[in-house]
Structures are given as C-alpha cells and as structure tokens.
C-alpha cells in the first residue's frame, strides 16, 4: 500500500477494537468538552455553538433584507407611489443587495460549513476554533451596526456594486458610501478567516482513511469555496481600499481627468463579484448532492463528474467577470472571449443538474419537505441558468442590460441555486442539532408558498424587463404597460414572505438545540455527521473505508459510540483532534485545541468598532479600538503554541502520535501560506491596477523614480529575508546567547523597514505625489501595502521577543517563529517586486 507520510496502513486493521474502555474515560471527555452556560456562551468556540450562532445570524440578515425587498415591492406595485422617497429607495435597494450578498449568502454558506464539516469529517472541531469565534462575532456585531445605518439615513445608496463616479466624493459627498466601503471591511476579514478555517479543516482534519476519493462531495464543494474566497475577496478588499483612499485623500484611482479610470473599479469589483455567485452556489450544490443521494436512497450518480464540475467551476468562474461589462466598450475580441467563457460555465452546472436528476431516477426518492425544496431549487436554478446563457450572448445583453430581466435572472439563480437548497438543508440536518425534527406538514406548506411566490414574483419580471423597465428606479409613470406585471410581482413577494413566515413558526415550534440528545438520522444519511455525537463530535474517530460509511457498515455508529476507534478519550487531558495528511488522510499528529476564551470575542468587538467608528469619522475612538483589537488578538495567541508534557501519545490500539510538530506539515504553516496567498492576491490586483492605468492613461505618467536606488532597496529586503531565515536556523543551536532568534528577527524587521523607507524616499524625491495622477496613486498604494506588511512584521518581532523572554520560543523548532519568518520572507519578496515593477514603466 502506497503511503504519503510513512504511516503503516495495516494499523487500521486494529479497529474497531474489542477491549472494554477504561472506567471514567467518557466522563473525562465530556468534562473537557463541557457546554458553556450563561455568559460563557460569549466565550464559546466549539463549532456546534458557533455554527448555530452563525446560521441564526445569517438567517436574521436574510429576514431583514427580505423585509426591505417587501417594502420596495409595495413601492413598485403601482406607478407613482409615495411610500419610499427616492433617496430612501436608493438606500433600500443598495442595502437589500449588500446585506443579501455580504451578510446573508456568504456567511450562511460558511456557517453551514462550520456546523457540518467537523461532524462530516469526524474531527473534534475545525482546526482554529477561536478564529471561527472571532469571524462570527466580528461579522455579527459589525453587521448589525452596518444595518443600523439605515435608521439614520446614512446607509449606502450607490447600489451593491458601488460604481464610481456615482460613489466618488463629488457625487456622494456624505458618509453613506463610506459605510459600504469601510463597513464591509469586517465582513471581508470574517469571510477570509472562515475560508482559511475551511480549507485547512477539509485538507488536514479528515478522519483517517478518508482519502480524497472518499471525501464527501460537500467537503469538496467547501474546499473549492475556500480557495475561491481567498482568490476572489482580495480583489474587492483592494477595490474598497482604493475607493476609500480616493474619497478620503483625493488619490485619483478612478478619476479619468487625472489619469484614473472608473472602469478599473468595475474590473476589480467583478473579478470578485462574479465568482461570488459561485461562492454561494457551490456549497449549496454540495449540500444538494449530499441530500439527493440520501433522499433517493442511492449513491450519487456521477460523483467524480460532480467533483470535476466543482473544480472546473472554481477555475472558470474567474474568467467571466467582464460579462458584467459588455456595454462598457471593451474591445470586440475581448468581449468574444468573455462571451465564450460565460457560455462554457454552464457546462459544469449542467453536469450537476443531470447528475441529480439521474440520482433521483435510479433511486427510490421520498417526496418529503427536503425533497420538495431540492426539486424546487433545481427547477428554479435551471430557469436562471438558461436566462444566464441568454445574457451571455452579447447582442441580447445589450438589450437586457440594467433592466428588470437581469433582476429576474439573478434572483432565479440565487434563490434556485442557494436559498431553496438552504431550506432543504434546514429540514434535512435539523435532526442533527435539535431534539425534534421540523414538521413535514408545515414544511410542505412553506415550500409550496415559497415556490409559488418565487415564480409569481420573478417570472413576470422577465417581461417587465423586456418591456423596458430599468432596474433601480423608485417609481414609474402610468401607461407604460408595466403596472400589471409589477402588481403580480408584488403579490408574489408576499406569498414568498408567507412561506418564510411559516418556516419561522415551524422553527419556533420544533427546533430545540442540543448536542447530545438530537433526533438522529431520521432520513438514513450515509455520511459521518449522522454518527452519535456530543460537543466533542464523535466519541471516537472512525477509520473510513467508503464514501457512505454508515451504509457500508451498519455497526459503525455503535462501535464509534463505544469508543472502539481512534482517540476514544482525551490523551492529554486537553481538547485535541487528529491532524491527517492531505491526500490519503494518514494520521500525522495530535493537535492540542484551544478551549473557550473571551479574547476572540473582545477582539471581534474591537475590530467591528474600528471599522464602524472610522466610518462615522470618530478617529480617536476608532484607532483606540484598532489597538485594542490587536492587543486582544495577541493575548489570544499568547495561550497557543505550547508543548504538553507528553511527547507522543497513544491515540488508540497502539497508534502513537506526536503532540508537537513543526514545519510545513503543520496546520499553522498551512494557514499562514493561505493567508500569504490572500495578501499576495491583493498585491497582484494592485499591480493589475498599476499596469491597467498605465495602459489606458499613459499620457498622465511621468518618469519613474531612479532605478539606481534599487541598489539600496533590494539589499535591504534581501538582508531582511536572510536574517529571518537565520533566526530560524539559530534556534536549533543550543549555545546561542547573544544573537538569539528574537534579536535576529528584530533586525530582520528593521531591514524591512529600511527597504520600504528607502523606496518611499526615492519616490518622494522624484517629485511624484499621490494626488497628482493615477500613477502617483497606484505607486503610493503599492508602497502603503508594503508599509502595512512591514508594520505587521515589526509587531511580530515584538511578540516574538516577548515570548522569547518568557522562554516560550522552544528549541530546536518553534511554530510561532516559523510562521513569523514566513511573513518576513514574503514581505521582503513583495517589497522587492514593488521596487522593481513600479520603475519599469513611465513617461
């Protein structure tokens, strides 16, 4: 048997064990993973709690944004209605779109992942539980404050895509646009934190034996989702930074009169915005694939093709952003490329649809509430997909662009592709987290109201759009034949809302959260989340031998519950899980997991406070919050990366695993690499902006700073990287006294600062200022990004010195130092590229 890590696969044959488990082992496990009570809930980090909080919060925002939609439909039911004035209507449609996309859809798919993935992979928890808690609280508190802006007339009003010049200071002088630009900062942080958690979780905490080919299809979907988030979100992070810099400091990124270009925003936004649709759809598609198989009582038809379809969608979704820009005057050939890609993306979606239909066809489907929502979602999504292919045709898009046809199309895609599957998932997985399942009878009523309401609302919008009604208008004149279809749409919206209300009643009546007395596997699912669980997830971690282990081995649940598999108790007296290899899921080491802590909660509160206070221009409190957020994060990190006294432990049946591992195989290293990819993508998009503006506005460019200054800049960065690497090497030497790793790392951070300082000085000396032109703005933006990296590097140096002084940087290898070294090496590389590339082009 080929191995990935040298692990002996014959050890798997020892499971399930037959010896009785020691007295008190289960009680000890329950004590270690005990449930938080009262105020302790704020410190909870366990995925069962954070997952439920997350799902509940995302659903709250779904309801709030839905209420905004209902008010808008009342306004549009008849011509010349006066319920919403124009300014308020603008805020309503902007908040509806923004909240649905940023505060409901993306958080909801991540939330369901946080809740389901550890159970499905039979891990004790996701690998960074405190990060999950931080991501949730930052999102929840920040999201509520963001939504509250509506009550003060301060909500953004430039549409969910915030196109400049509408949103530039000239045309949006208040702070409404800033609320969007800064207010979603914490959502971006939260989404990326969730993505890191999910990627590392899927690749490194699967149950032993769960090789890639045996991985649940939902885990595949979440893996692709995570990767898409880390590639796509940096683009919108950079875009919001640039627009805010333009608004706050007059740096003309998007001002064509000074060498900027408004279309740059559209490129940055849609490079994020279109993959965003698939970021929402793919996890839902993963859920559907799991549920279809369970409901049809047969393995998923075309499992491999679905995995390939997920991967293909992940790639190609980054090649279709400009189909939102067909009317902006792109070169004809480019339009042709994007049109072709937009049609091609329907192929992987089609594979998934046919696979689901085939599974239903070969199985013995049950027509219960989850199945109805699944079928309703498939039908609705197919309609949205077909109109999507229509608007991929450039001549048709020119006609339908910015009309209600597009509103109909996107709602068919999003409701069919994500919302109906989400309700199906609620009905299907509620028995996993609740004492009682949801009601079948109410569920069917809710479905038919929602399905009919959806069709009645959005089908006529196709016609309204084809009759010429534009999007985002707060009213219309009578006599244009739009009255009837608008009235029908408004009636349908209330039918849809009635269905959601019925669902809420069902939840209030039946849902009772529990972690250990749940209703159980009432739909006879075959995957591991249906094992009997507590807060520690499964009692013991099974060895996986097929894609549907519970169908394959009917006795598995009993064996797992009796502790006959790996890690049946706590080997160190702490929270722990098994980290496995990425391909073959071979056990590698025991990860000691952090327990409940107030610091992630406080860090999140201060993070949200930083962004929200910055928006309302309360600078001193905002920066105070920023500093406190950093302090809280450092305090939370202080407890981590500590060795336990047991060097290796018995994880069950004599399988011994180390408790402390360093280097590229650790989950921390993986997380840092993913974080650096995020930072790298921000840098790549900034470089794209730089060269893009040079391409379209080169007449505004002046000669770059002298290339000769690179003789100072590049050696400084080289020294920084070298010193950082040396600090890692020196740690292994027992006799080092003066040039300790802390001192060397501090010198590396100083060299970084010298590098970026020299670069900045060089550009200032060239006479270029950021307000002067697109060149100035992008050059100083690139330098600012480097300054930010250097600042974090300096902070890391201080942190390492503090840990070193307490003897916490242990020899010969230490994870904290390893990760900080990676950061400095990356920062040096990015600084060097900034120095060279900004000098490549100019007058």
């Amino acid at each position, binding site marked *: 048997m080929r191995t990935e890590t040298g692990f002996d696969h014959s050890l798997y044959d020892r499971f399930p064990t037959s010896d009785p488990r020691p007295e008190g082992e289960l009680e000890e496990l329950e004590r270690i993973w005990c449930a938080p009570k009262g105020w302790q809930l704020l410190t909870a980090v366990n995925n069962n709690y954070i997952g439920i909080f997350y799902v509940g919060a995302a659903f709250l925002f779904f309801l709030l944004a839905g209420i905004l939609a209902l008010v808008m439909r009342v306004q549009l039911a008849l011509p010349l209605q006066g319920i919403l004035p124009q300014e308020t209507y603008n805020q309503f449609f902007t908040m509806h779109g923004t909240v649905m996309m940023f505060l409901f859809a993306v958080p909801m798919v991540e939330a369901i992942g946080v809740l389901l993935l550890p159970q499905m992979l039979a891990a004790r928890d996701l690998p960074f539980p405190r990060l999950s808690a931080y991501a949730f609280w930052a999102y929840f508190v920040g999201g509520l404050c963001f939504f509250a802006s509506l009550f003060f007339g301060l909500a953004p009003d430039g549409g969910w895509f915030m196109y400049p010049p509408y949103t530039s200071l000239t045309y949006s002088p208040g702070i409404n646009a800033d609320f969007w630009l800064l207010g979603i900062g914490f959502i971006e942080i939260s989404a990326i934190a969730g993505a890191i958690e999910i990627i590392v979780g899927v690749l490194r905490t699967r149950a032993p034996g769960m090789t890639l*080919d045996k991985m649940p299809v939902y885990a595949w979907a979440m893996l692709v989702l995570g990767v898409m988030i880390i590639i796509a979100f940096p683009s919108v992070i950079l875009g919001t930074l640039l627009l805010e810099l333009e608004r706050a400091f007059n740096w003309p990124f998007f001002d064509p009169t000074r060498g900027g270009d408004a279309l740059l925003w559209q490129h940055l936004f849609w490079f994020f915005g279109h993959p965003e649709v698939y970021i929402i759809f793919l996890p839902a598609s993963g859920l559907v694939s799991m549920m279809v198989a369970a409901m049809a009582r047969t393995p998923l038809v075309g499992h491999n093709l679905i995995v390939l379809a997920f*991967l*293909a969608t992940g790639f190609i979704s980054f090649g279709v952003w400009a189909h939102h820009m067909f009317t902006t005057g792109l070169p004809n*050939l480019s339009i*042709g*490329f994007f049109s*072709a*890609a937009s049609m091609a993306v329907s192929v992987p979606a089609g594979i998934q649809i046919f696979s689901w239909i085939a599974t239903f066809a070969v199985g013995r489907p049950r027509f219960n509430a989850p199945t109805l929502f699944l079928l309703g979602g498939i039908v609705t999504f197919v309609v949205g997909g077909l109109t999507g292919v229509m608007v991929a045709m450039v001549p048709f898009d020119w006609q339908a662009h910015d009309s209600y046809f597009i509103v109909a199309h996107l709602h068919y895609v999003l409701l069919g592709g994500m919302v109906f599957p989400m309700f199906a998932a609620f009905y299907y997985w509620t028995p996993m987290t609740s004492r009682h399942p949801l009601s079948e009878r109410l569920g069917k009523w809710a479905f038919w109201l929602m399905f009919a309401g959806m069709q009645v609302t959005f089908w006529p919008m196709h016609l309204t759009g084809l009759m010429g009604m534009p999007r985002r208008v707060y009213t219309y004149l009578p006599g244009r034949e739009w009255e009837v279809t608008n009235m029908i749409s408004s009636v349908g919206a209330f039918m849809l809302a009635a269905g959601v209300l019925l669902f809420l009643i069902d939840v209030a009546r039946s849902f009772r959260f529990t972690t250990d007395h749940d209703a159980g596997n009432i739909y006879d699912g075959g995957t591991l989340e249906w094992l009997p669980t507590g807060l520690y997830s499964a009692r013991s971690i099974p060895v996986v031998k097929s894609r549907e282990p519970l169908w394959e081995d009917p006795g598995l649940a009993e064996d797992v519950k009796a502790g006959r598999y790996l890690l049946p108790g706590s080997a160190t007296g702490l929270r722990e899980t098994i980290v496995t290899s990425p*391909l073959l899921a071979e056990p590698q080491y025991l990860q000691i997991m952090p327990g409940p802590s107030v610091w992630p909660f406080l860090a999140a509160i201060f993070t949200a406070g930083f962004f929200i206070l910055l928006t309302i221009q309360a600078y001193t409190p905002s920066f105070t919050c920023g500093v406190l957020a950093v302090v809280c994060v450092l305090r939370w990190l202080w407890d981590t990366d500590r060795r336990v006294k047991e060097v290796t432990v018995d994880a069950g049946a004599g399988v011994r695993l180390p408790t402390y591992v360093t280097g590229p195989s650790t989950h921390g290293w993986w997380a840092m690499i993913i974080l650096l990819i995020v930072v790298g993508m921000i840098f790549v998009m900034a470089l794209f902006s730089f060269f893009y503006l040079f*391409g379209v506005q080169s007449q505004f460019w002046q000669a770059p700073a002298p290339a000769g200054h690179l003789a100072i800049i590049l050696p400084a960065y080289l020294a920084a990287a070298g010193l950082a690497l040396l600090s890692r090497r020196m740690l292994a030497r027992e006799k080092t006294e003066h040039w300790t790793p802390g001192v060397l790392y501090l010198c590396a951070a100083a060299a970084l600062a010298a590098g970026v300082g020299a670069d900045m000085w060089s550009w200032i000396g060239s006479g270029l200022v950021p307000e002067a032109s697109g060149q100035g703005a992008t050059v100083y933006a690139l330098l600012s990004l480097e300054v930010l990296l250097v600042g974090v590097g300096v902070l890391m140096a201080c942190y390492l010195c503090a840990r070193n002084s307490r003897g916490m940087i242990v020899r010969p290898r230490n994870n904290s130092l390893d990760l900080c070294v990676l950061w400095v090496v990356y920062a040096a590389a990015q600084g060097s590229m900034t120095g060279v590339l900004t000098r490549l082009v100019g007058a």
Partner: protein
Amino acid sequence: MRTWALLLAGLVIWTVHFFALYIVGSIWLTTPLARALTLALTLLCTGAIAMFLVRARRYLPETAMDRWVRSISLVGLGVSAVAILWQGLPALLI
C-alpha cells in the same frame, strides 16, 4: 504535489490560456496580430494538454485513490482541451 499537478493540470492550462487571451485582447485589441497570437496560444496550450494526457495515460495506478486521480485527470484534460478550442474560437469569428 505530483498528485495535485495531475489532478488540476487541465484546468490550470485552461486558466492560463484564458488569461493570456485576455491580455492579448486588451493590448492588441481586435487586430490581425491579436488573432494570430490567439491561434498560437491555443495551439501551445492544446499541445501542453496533449503532453499531460500522455503522462496521465502512462501513470500506472496502484490503489483505488490512484485510479480516481487518473480518471479525474484524464476527464479534466479532455474537457479542458475542448474548452481551450472553444475559447479560441472568437478570434476566427469576430
């Protein structure tokens, strides 16, 4: 790493091809040079796909996981080849 390379080769080449075409279309607009470069890039990427196809076919699977990787790789490469040709087609039509 080798497994991931095999698994994703087709899709990565497809992505490289797409972004290369985007750069060509943006710099040389709708010109004969752009069309010629599109053709050259399409042939180059199709060649790369063919090379990986040969490697994937030579890859002898030992385990169920290996067989799975090989099948995903082969289908991915085939689909990507079609997609690359499809993606290059606008240069002939527009």
